[in-house]
């Protein structure tokens, strides 16, 4: 860990947090009219993975994708505008929060069906392998994805063809309101089961951005040097309700002790304490950063609310492409 990296990780986590919390704050204005899944509390995984990936690496994600998109370098203005349904959105307002895309930085798309982009990521990996440029495909997934058949089919193909694919599983231990043990046999942890299939795996604390960074760095290097696919599991915790801007701890689907444990160890405070203690960062630097971030985020919301809606005609456009579009 060096100073520059520490700054980047702190900045990236704070930026994601600020975006998500601003959405939460402003959602009740009823202008972001689409289902929206926030990543507050889960920032460390995205921030660390995002620092490691190259622009030419390709990423896909699912319904909870804001953090992945931002960490991969996706355009913030275009994301907020997308959530606001504006024509300046990254999908021209057609996809909303769950359909983010910024191919200019290798963010190839997030979609709303659980597991839906897993094989797409593997297909991207197949293409990368054929091109032979040592880029990798990254698939962000939640713990419920491990229940989908397509995940195993995808793992098998990635192994069979020894593809440069990194599966990053953020295990926030819940699928909507349902805990892991009501959905999966948990005698073995997720990464152990995946390892059992013959995949390189690694496991870590998703609240610890340093651990995530080191383990991911190590694994991506193995993949780039032809080691084949790998699976990372990072345990983490979602602060707010599954979908929407509110807290829902009053519904008691998660134990208070569980919530407190994870919240008290939350990734930004944890990392910054360590960084300050070890002299990597100064309190004042962090504050300056935060002010800059807030300005950037506010500007993005300004951009979004001031952007026009798509023209009514766009509703029927884009059913068929007229030509091949270069990525």
């Amino acid at each position, binding site marked *: 860990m060096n100073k520059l990296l520490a700054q980047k990780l702190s900045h990236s986590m704070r930026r994601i947090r600020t975006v998500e919390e601003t959405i939460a704050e402003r959602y009740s204005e009823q202008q972001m009219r689409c289902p929206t899944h926030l990543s507050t509390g889960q920032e460390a995984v995205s921030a660390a993975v995002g620092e490691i990936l190259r622009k030419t690496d390709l990423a896909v994600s699912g319904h909870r994708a804001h953090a992945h998109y931002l960490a991969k370098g996706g355009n913030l203005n275009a994301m907020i505008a997308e959530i606001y349904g504006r024509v300046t959105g990254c999908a021209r307002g057609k996809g909303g929060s769950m359909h983010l895309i910024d191919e200019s930085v290798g963010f190839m798309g997030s979609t709303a069906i*659980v597991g839906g982009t897993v094989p797409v990521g593997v297909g991207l990996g197949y293409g990368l392998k054929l091109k032979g440029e040592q880029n990798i495909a990254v698939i962000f997934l939640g713990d419920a994805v491990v229940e989908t058949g397509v995940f195993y089919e995808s793992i098998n193909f990635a192994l069979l063809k020894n593809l440069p694919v990194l599966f990053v599983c953020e295990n926030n231990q819940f699928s909507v309101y349902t805990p892991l043990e009501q959905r999966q046999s948990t005698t073995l942890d997720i990464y152990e089961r995946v390892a059992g299939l013959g995949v390189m795996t690694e496991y870590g604390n998703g609240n610890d951005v340093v651990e995530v960074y080191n383990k991911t760095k190590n694994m991506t290097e193995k993949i780039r040097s032809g080691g084949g696919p790998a699976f990372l599991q990072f345990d983490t915790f979602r602060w707010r309700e599954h979908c929407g801007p509110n807290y829902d701890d009053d519904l008691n689907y998660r134990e208070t002790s569980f919530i407190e444990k994870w919240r008290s160890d939350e990734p930004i405070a944890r990392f910054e304490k360590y960084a300050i203690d070890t002299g990597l960062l100064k309190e004042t630097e962090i504050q300056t950063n935060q002010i800059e971030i807030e300005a950037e985020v506010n500007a993005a919301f300004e951009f979004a609310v001031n952007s026009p809606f798509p023209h009514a005609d*766009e*509703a029927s456009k884009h059913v068929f492409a007229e030509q091949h579009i270069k990525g």
Partner: protein
Amino acid sequence: MSEKTTFAQEVRDALHHALSSDPSVLVFGLGVPDPKGVFGTTTDLQTIHGEDRVFDMPTSENAMTGIAIGAALGGFKPILTHQRLDFALLSMDQLVNNAAKWHFMFGGKRNVPVTIRMILGRGWGQGPTHSQNLQSWFAHIPGLKVVMPALASDVKSLLLASIFDPNPVIFLEHRWLHNMQTDVSTVMAPAKLGEAKLLSRGDAVTIVSMSYMTIEALHAVSCLKEQGVEIDLIDLRTVSPIDWTKIEKSVEKTGRLLVLDTGFKQVSIAGEIITHIIETSWQHLKSQPVRLTAPNYSESTSPALTQNYHVRADDIVTKVGEIIDKELNCQQLIDQRSSLHDVPGDWFTGPF
């Protein structure tokens, strides 16, 4: 004044009644026992009926459909719920290659009494993959019954009929109906699947409709009535098999047909109904049959792009005017609208 209940509550009551009256009934699906209980349709059922018979499931739509089939072959009557129809696309193999065909391909040796509830999304940015109304698909498959309730007062008897039907039944619940109100009633008699319902009588035009479109049609019909145009409004209730007799009889009387459909236009149930009427009632037709459906493209997320996407009561009035060649006014319907076009009512403030 009688006490009121909702469509969602009626679904829950039907499930509760089925679970109570028949120990072979099982209820499962993502979120079934969770605090929200699938939009209030499964609330408390696990507490009352136990974890063996009412349970959550892994995000494994295909296997869970096969598991429902297996449980059915083992003597149970499983009810599987999908929070959106779109997720059930993962289970088409089990549904079409197994459930729909089991009775047929084993020469009638066994039946598969599974009920698969799928919720149809609309509005509030549901977007392309949370808003598909694919009743056409299911109605194309021999061996599946397809039920699309519209009225809160109907849903209980239709769901009970589906659960106790010996065949696989796809039960499509439109999300915008869940909050609809009706009088509380304790009647628990199953409806007859395959029977449509005449919701209003008239000589001018036959309107055939389904699911949420029937609500829009009811508004249109009362607006038309005020302008002296009397409509035969047929709520299909079951879109496969279709109650052809009722439709044919009505067209015989009116000679004019308008079909409403919540699905994409091309290869729609609406098209099937028109073709069938052409085949059976050609000589009775006074004008060309017409359909109003969703267009041949997906619902976008941005509210700006859903503004004109769905057929609404005033579209129906206008279309009836075209059919009978009469100037009709629908301003009143437009003025009545109290909430934004992308929510079922003011009570809905997102996010799902």
